């Protein structure tokens, strides 16, 4: 018989399983130090990590690094203009490219790479050269599966260079392919002997944007715009604009352009960020300057999707900004501070951007690094390497690893395990400032069209929907059920009672899919057509009730004996039928006379209520079918089990039947009625098919009775089959299920305990 206990344990195990599936949402991010590898012949020999030598570390060292998807290769950009792709397994150079096809006359004496910028969404580097040119360099990792084994073949190629400011005549670089464009270019940019210190290049579908900071503290933008006419060849126009004036004399220290080429942002030495709108690329428009900190802005970067801007200042402050609607300028945008993350102790040298999530990493010069997530606004991981100083660093594209470069060119590698960065209690239940929104909001939108989509997993609108549906359902069902139970238990003729009770309980057996179908396919369109009629029916029924009750109260005794309270239901039935019939018949007249001919307009104007076809009222009616029999049955049981001597005593003392019910029976049975309502609440909260079929399932937060909603349970049914196993959405849906189970379990337990106590009390009476 241990089997019996095992079954009960198994049922408890069910809840444990659901908890176990949801729990990893709160697991903190973890990291593991993989060790430090030196890239270079001597180091390779010493550590044995590398089978082959990569070559002597070039003069001046590394300008920047990056990892590939699978963390099998590291891209190293050297100051002398070389880009190497090194296989981490054996240290072999898998692909290489250099700005200087032939070595400059003076070794290390040619123009140098002053800065390298990595595109947030692809392996496209922008090299800012000291001779004033920008060279975009594209690294591709071709993945093939010969014999089922993954094989990555890297290659490096440069796109056409952009001469942003004129310097010494450039040696030829490999030109990009494609049809030749007829150019109408303006003369190249302003002459500058000092070259560039930082630059970005963003290819666009119809041209490109290149921007740079010069050593003499100027901001130069060069853009190309292609226009394709139906006839004739493609035309490309290039223009160069100097934007230094917008800085009002401040020294520019960092810049970036989003991947869609919409905004140019320049950080200055006073800790501010100046933004330009590049919507009309040829004529950039100054947006303004916002303060980001007290120290010079050290790094600016856009996150995946190109909406969130991350800024790091020299004092280690890391902030996130979003372009939002500018209330002062119609159609204008401005950058708004959204989050501030945990501060670094030293200036940030690199911002690594994940290509899977809205996560990013910041690494400072002293070796500290941190992983943050934009949506949650949380810093998830803070660690420190043993390196004395860090010159460059990168986050793996999947956000699962990090590499930091020491002063000697050694690579310090860490893994990051951070499966559900986008979920915190704050994002699940609080307001979150999402990309593309002008203010923090509660939003549920679990999936979008692209990888860059920001999942919006707020359970609040779903909980709101569930409670809204439940509230309206109970408002409708509880009075009907409880009053019906009172009448059935204490007024109705016993032989009718034997029929009425099973008939009402028959309702409980109706499958919710049938109720939902009727609500969605029949009731909703019917109510939409006859809404004024529905209102009229309600008014008619109420008026009829008042009139009949008043008349009945004045009946002579003889008449009253003919129509005792026990038979009133015989009159109430035709009354309701007549009211519904009459109400629908006069509906169009009501609409014309009282609602100005269009009830939707009338609702909107008088009550500010929007009317959806599949609305909460429809749900309430359909859910009534599910809730009424539950509440009715339990209440009726309790009301009729009130001991007879109490009733008799009250009647004997001269109380009327109604007074007895109101003052004696109801107080005794009240706990059971309460528990019946609780059970009805539990049923309504968990109802899935009715709300799925009878509402529009739009997760909006609107308390209106004529609008739809999306309930927690329906949401699980809709989204579960599309949620990848083990993913964040999957676990959030398990959490929703857990919430539902927890709420109903608790409510039912309370109801059950109340009922048991009442039973004991009744036994004592």
């Amino acid at each position, binding site marked *: 018989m241990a089997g019996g206990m095992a079954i009960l344990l198994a049922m408890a195990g069910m809840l444990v399983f659901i908890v176990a599936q949801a729990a990893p949402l709160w697991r903190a991010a973890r990291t593991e130090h993989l060790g430090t590898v030196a890239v270079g012949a001597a180091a390779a020999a010493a550590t044995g990590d590398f089978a082959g030598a990569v070559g002597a570390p070039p003069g001046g060292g590394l300008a920047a690094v990056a990892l590939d998807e699978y963390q099998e290769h590291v891209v190293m950009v050297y100051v002398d203009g070389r880009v190497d792709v090194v296989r981490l397994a054996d240290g072999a150079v898998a692909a290489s490219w250099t700005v200087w096809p032939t070595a400059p006359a003076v070794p290390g004496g040619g123009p140098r790479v002053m800065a390298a910028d990595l595109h947030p969404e692809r392996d496209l580097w922008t090299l800012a050269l000291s001779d004033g040119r920008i060279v975009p360099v594209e690294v591709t990792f071709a993945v093939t599966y010969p014999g089922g084994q993954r094989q990555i073949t890297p290659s490096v190629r440069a796109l056409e260079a952009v001469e942003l400011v004129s310097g010494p005549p450039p040696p030829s670089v490999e030109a990009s392919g494609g049809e030749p464009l007829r150019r109408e270019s303006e003369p190249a940019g302003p002459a500058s002997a000092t070259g560039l210190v930082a630059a970005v290049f963003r290819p666009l579908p119809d041209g490109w944007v290149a921007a740079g900071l010069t050593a003499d503290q100027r901001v130069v933008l060069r853009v190309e715009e292609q226009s394709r006419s139906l006839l004739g060849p493609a035309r490309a126009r290039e223009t160069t604009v100097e934007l230094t004036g917008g800085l009002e004399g401040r020294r520019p220290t960092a810049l970036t352009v989003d991947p869609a080429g919409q905004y140019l942002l320049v950080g200055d030495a006073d800790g501010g960020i100046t933004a330009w709108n590049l919507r009309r690329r040829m004529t950039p428009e100054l947006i303004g300057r916002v303060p980001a900190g007290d120290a010079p802005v050290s790094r600016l970067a856009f996150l995946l999707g190109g909406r969130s801007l991350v800024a790091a200042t020299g004092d280690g402050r890391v902030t996130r900004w979003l372009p939002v609607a500018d209330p002062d300028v119609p159609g204008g945008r401005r950058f708004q501070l959204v989050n501030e993350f945990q501060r670094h102790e030293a200036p940030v040298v690199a911002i690594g951007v994940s290509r899977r999530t809205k996560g990013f990493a910041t690494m400072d010069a002293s070796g500290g690094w941190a992983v943050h997530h934009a949506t949650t606004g949380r810093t998830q991981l803070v660690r420190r390497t043993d390196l004395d100083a860090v010159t460059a660093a990168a986050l793996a594209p999947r956000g699962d690893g990090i590499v930091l470069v020491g002063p000697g060119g050694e690579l310090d590698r860490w893994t990051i395990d951070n499966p559900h960065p986008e979920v915190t209690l704050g994002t699940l239940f609080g307001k979150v400032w999402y990309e593309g929104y002008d203010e923090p909001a509660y939003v549920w939108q679990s999936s979008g069209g692209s990888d860059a989509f920001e999942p919006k997993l707020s359970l609040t609108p779903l909980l709101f929907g569930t409670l809204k549906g439940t509230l309206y359902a109970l408002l409708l069902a509880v009075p*009907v059920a409880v009053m019906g139970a009172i009448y059935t238990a204490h007024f109705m003729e016993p032989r009718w009672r034997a029929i009425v009770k099973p*008939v009402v309980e028959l309702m409980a057996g109706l499958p919710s*899919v049938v109720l939902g179908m009727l609500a969605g*396919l029949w009731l909703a369109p019917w109510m939409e057509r006859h809404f004024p009629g529905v209102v009229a029916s309600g008014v008619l029924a109420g008026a009829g009730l008042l009139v009949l009750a008043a008349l009945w109260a004045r009946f002579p005794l003889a008449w009253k004996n003919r129509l005792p309270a026990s038979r009133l239901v015989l009159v109430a039935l035709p009354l309701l039928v007549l009211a519904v019939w009459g109400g629908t018949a006069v509906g169009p007249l009501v609409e014309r006379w009282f609602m100005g001919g269009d009830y939707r307009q009338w609702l909107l104007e008088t009550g500010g209520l929007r009317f959806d076809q599949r609305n909460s009222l429809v749900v309430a009616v359909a859910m009534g079918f599910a809730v009424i029999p539950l509440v009715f049955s339990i209440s009726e049981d309790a009301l009729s089990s009130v001991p007879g001597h109490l009733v008799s005593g009250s009647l004997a003392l001269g*109380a009327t039947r109604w007074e007895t019910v109101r003052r004696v029976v109801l107080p005794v049975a009240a706990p059971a009625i309460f528990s019946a309502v609780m059970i009805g609440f539990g049923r309504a909260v968990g109802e899935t098919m009715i709300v799925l079929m009878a509402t529009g399932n739009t997760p909006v937060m609107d308390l209106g009775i004529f609008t739809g909603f999306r309930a927690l349970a329906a949401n699980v049914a809709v989204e579960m089959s599309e949620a990848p196993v083990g993913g964040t959405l999957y676990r959030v849906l398990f959490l929703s299920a857990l919430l539902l189970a927890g709420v109903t*379990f608790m409510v039912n337990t309370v109801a059950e305990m109340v009922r048991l106590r009442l039973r004991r009390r009744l036994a004592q009476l």
Partner: protein
Amino acid sequence: MNGAATETTRGPGPQAVLPQHGAQELGFPLPVTSASRAAVARRRREGALQVWMTATAVAASLLMVAGLLLLVLVNGLGYFWPRDVARLELVDGQVIIGEIVGREPIPDMGATLTGATASASGPRYRIQLKTGNRDVYGLDYRWVDEDAIAALGYPEDITVFERRAWGNLYGVVLEENADGYEVQLADGRTRWLRAQDVVDSWRPNAMTTGQKLVAYAVNVWEFLTGEPRESNTEGGIFPALFGTVLMVFLMTLAAVPLGVLAALYLREYAGQGPLVSLVRVAVNNLAGVPSIVYGVFGLGFFVYGVGGTLDRLLFSDQLPTPTFGTGGILWASLTMALLTVPVVIVATEEGLAAVPGSLREASLALGATRWETVRHVILPRVLPAVITGAILAIARAAGEVAPLMLTGVVKVAPALAIDGTAPFVHLYRKFMHLGFHIYDAGFQSPNVEAARPMVFATTLVLLALITGLNLVAVVLRHRLRERYQSPSV
């Protein structure tokens, strides 16, 4: 008039009223009150309005049940009737052939602008026609203003073709041979209909009522035994019926033994301490946990957990295509079994509680072991309760859809879970279900309007199945009770 009625909602309590009466009986001089005031007080005490309201609540509940059943019956049963096909000639010379399915007043949009002009002439009506011929007209239904109709008739030569695709076709057969039919449509165009595309054809206007009744019965039979067509908006529902029954059968196999064991343990073996009553409350409450929660558990545990493991162990050659690692009828049945075990436990426990302790004691006193007592004395007596529980569980499972949506129900299953290919029973297969069929055809199909009649027919079948099961439970319970319950106890 209703002053008394409305005030009664917060009328004075007995304490306030009774002393007055007492005073009257004792003959104290009463404060001067008019007869009407006394009547008001009396009416207030009677609570006329409240009693009427409670009566109306009962009436409303009864109306809801009756209205719903009537709605489903009328719509569901009407689906099978071979309706007459009308031929309409419009004022503008257009000819339309179709079944008249609805009539409603035309919502007059102009009324607000032009004043109440329409009210003088009364509302105008329009009728809805099922014109079929979706391949020609693009839509199945159209509305025709009654004012626009010049002539309406029911010519006997109109034939209705039920086709494999594109829905019904209405027209007049010009020529007929073994290969097919030359049909003239309402607008005079002719179409060639291949015989293999036609499921059935009839001439409703030429049929007698008797013939129609026969056709009705045939239609019902074909609906119950036929395959679905046109993404579930036409044809039969046999796979859904089969899937429902098989799923429920498998569920019963799992749920009933588990439920009975658990109930026996709780009632016969476990000591009746606070822990056991806590467990009992918990079991009761598990029945109230939303079904979608069971679905989520079934998906996570059975499908991905157990199924995924089975796939890795037994079907690794077929990976990454899942065999058991995806929704299927076995997982759906087990999920449903979990959902319904509390129902069986509660019902069995009730039965066990009704078995008199004297029987147990007598059996034990005669030297039977505990298990022998349970096996030979108690189990036969609780059998009615067990069967009742099982049937209630089945009725609940047959109507649940939400958990199935996560654990293996599909819109169209390519094959039944039981068929002629070895090993004959394929429990990993996905299946169709009546309830999901309703949801899918009514809400997910591309042509909801055309699917509506079919949805009602399926609803009727589902309701009939569930009501039938509930009735069987009642009858069976009654019979078994008579057989096993001797009147002496």
